[in-house]
């Protein structure tokens, strides 16, 4: 598929020292739903603003549909943005807000009216056309902002944390709606979020950012199952990270730390004596009996049992002192009694294929 957006070697520094975006390379295919994910201050918004034209890169280039737009002002770019605070024009009605971009295109009145109407209908707000922004609820404002951005039929829709101001229920509903809208419109969506669940649910591809750089880009399952670093492993989903030393690389890799020996799948690039990090997802652990003849038995003490509705998280501690998490789905009989209680010892088994090994410098 052809690339609609080509970001090549883009960097942006503020005030000569804050490197907000650092040599980013990213191509986005037409119609893709891409999420920029990362902690606060990692440069997501800055990267998005360079696509919109509000910010110019210090170096590198941005191409849109093959055309270099690096230094083109926002009003000459075929992209539209949904702002985090929606930025609705307070002096205009919902319909006028939506129609603003069409009026700038000098379309005739009838055409504008028709397109505004259908955009409002698409977001389920036909009845609110004549309301002022301050007469709308947060969720309704969000929809107006969305309608305003898509009514111009841009090639790319940019969304900066579009759902962050909504409460949890509305947010989940809007996630689904946005996804449907993406399918229906077929245009490219680039969304910023720092909510990993949101990113996993919505995206075709997630770009995890770390200090202005791309830590890893891939499909949600790529990132979840094959994280490139412990940073990604702990940012996308939850991971137990254990530090240790490689003791042997014959017949799979053996990893050891004080009181714990793990057998992992063979992996190139490791040699005995090397320091390494092992990451294990909490839901990949099985609870076994104390004397079980299994590989990779991990002994801990349960500190807390946290009820999550459909699952239970055991917050445990290794003998060496680190926190170790285990998630258990509750079965149909919802038998909490089978799980160890706080203060009790517990043994987990981790299958070799559930352990991801990283070199220490990958952190």
């Amino acid at each position, binding site marked *: 598929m052809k690339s609609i957006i080509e970001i090549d070697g883009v960097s942006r520094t503020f005030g000569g020292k804050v490197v907000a975006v650092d040599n980013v390379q990213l191509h986005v295919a037409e119609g893709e739903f891409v999420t920029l994910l990362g902690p606060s201050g990692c440069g997501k918004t800055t990267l998005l603003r360079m696509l*919109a*034209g*509000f910010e110019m890169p210090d170096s590198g280039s941005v191409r849109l549909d093959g055309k270099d737009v690096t230094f083109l*002002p*926002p*009003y000459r770019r075929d*992209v*539209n*943005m949904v*702002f985090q*605070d929606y*930025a*609705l*024009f*307070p*002096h205009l*009605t919902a319909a006028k807000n939506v129609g*603003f*971009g069409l009026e*700038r*295109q000098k379309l005739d009145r009838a055409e504008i009216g028709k397109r505004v109407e259908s955009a409002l209908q698409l977001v389920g707000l036909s009845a609110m056309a*004549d*309301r*002022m922004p301050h007469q709308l609820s947060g969720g309704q404002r969000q929809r107006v902002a969305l309608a*305003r*951005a898509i009514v*111009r039929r841009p090639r790319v829709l940019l969304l900066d944390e579009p759902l962050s101001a909504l409460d949890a229920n509305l947010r989940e509903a809007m996630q689904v709606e946005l996804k449907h809208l993406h399918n229906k419109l077929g245009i490219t969506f680039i969304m910023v979020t720092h909510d990993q669940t949101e990113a996993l649910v919505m995206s075709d591809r997630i770009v995890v950012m770390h200090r202005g750089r791309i830590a890893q880009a891939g499909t949600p399952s790529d990132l979840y199952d094959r994280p490139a670093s412990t940073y990604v492993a702990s940012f996308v989903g939850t991971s137990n990270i254990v530090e240790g030393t490689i003791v042997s690389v014959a017949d799979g890799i053996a990893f050891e730390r004080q009181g714990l020996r793990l057998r992992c799948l063979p992996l190139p690039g490791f040699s005995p004596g090397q320091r390494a990090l092992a990451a294990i997802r909490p839901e990949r652990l099985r609870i076994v009996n104390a004397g079980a003849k299994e590989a990779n038995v991990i002994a801990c003490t349960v500190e807390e049992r946290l009820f999550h509705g459909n699952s239970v998280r055991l917050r445990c501690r290794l003998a060496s002192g680190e926190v170790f998490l285990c998630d258990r789905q509750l079965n149909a009989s919802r038998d909490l009694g089978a799980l160890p209680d706080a203060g009790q010892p517990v043994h987990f088994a981790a299958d070799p294929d559930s352990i991801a090994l990283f070199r220490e410098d990958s952190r």
Partner: protein
Amino acid sequence: MAETSQNYTASRIGDGVFGAAIAAILAYLYLPVAVLIIFSFNDSNTLTLPLSGFTLKWYEELFGNSDLKKALFNSFYVATLATALTVVIGVPAAFALDRMNFPGKTLFRRLVLLPLVLPGIITGIAMLNLFKLMGFRLGLETVIIGHATALLSVVVTQVFARLQRLNRNLEEAAADLGAKPWETFFYIVLPNIRSAIIGSALLSFTLSFDEIPVTFFLTGRDNTLPMYIWSTMRRGITPEINAVGTLIVAASLVLIALSVWMLRSNERP
């Protein structure tokens, strides 16, 4: 803030006393104006009680007094042009303060605000010196320049404060939707600061209309209304002056109603 202290007082001394206090404050503010209006219709040459009957003759005399009419016209002329000048200079200055970063910006802001706190006499004398130095002929035009200088800060502070509160994302959103910078200004920024501009312009107008100290130094032979009234005071307050005062009160009420209406229609869909 106002509401809590109001509640506090109300609960302390009770609604009756509170009501009386309100009445006293209103009386203090408006009794003089009421006296002015009543005596403008009183059929007597002197300001003494009891009232001696209703008449419109002071208004007739007023319209026959060409000096007074000229002064009234001059005041309108000066206030209108001085206001226009403060808006034309003040709005861009407020934008410069809000948008641009330049060395000495804080100093610039302080300097713009200074004429407002400077006594009118100082502004008047200073400008008189300058105009003499530059060989200007004194007249209504020099008064206009003087007023605009003294009142510039009114417009700058009001518009600047509004700009500071304006969400900058609105302008980015407009640009994102294809608005060129001038379109963003006229369709997005201006409607949102309109009430601040109108409000400060009206205030400028009123302040200029009854300004005396600066006018005193900068006007040549021409009289503005307050100067005229002041000069006739040597002969005591005539009922005619009361009639002018009443007309000005009426005009002010119309202006206020107009501004309230304009600001309202700004908020309606």
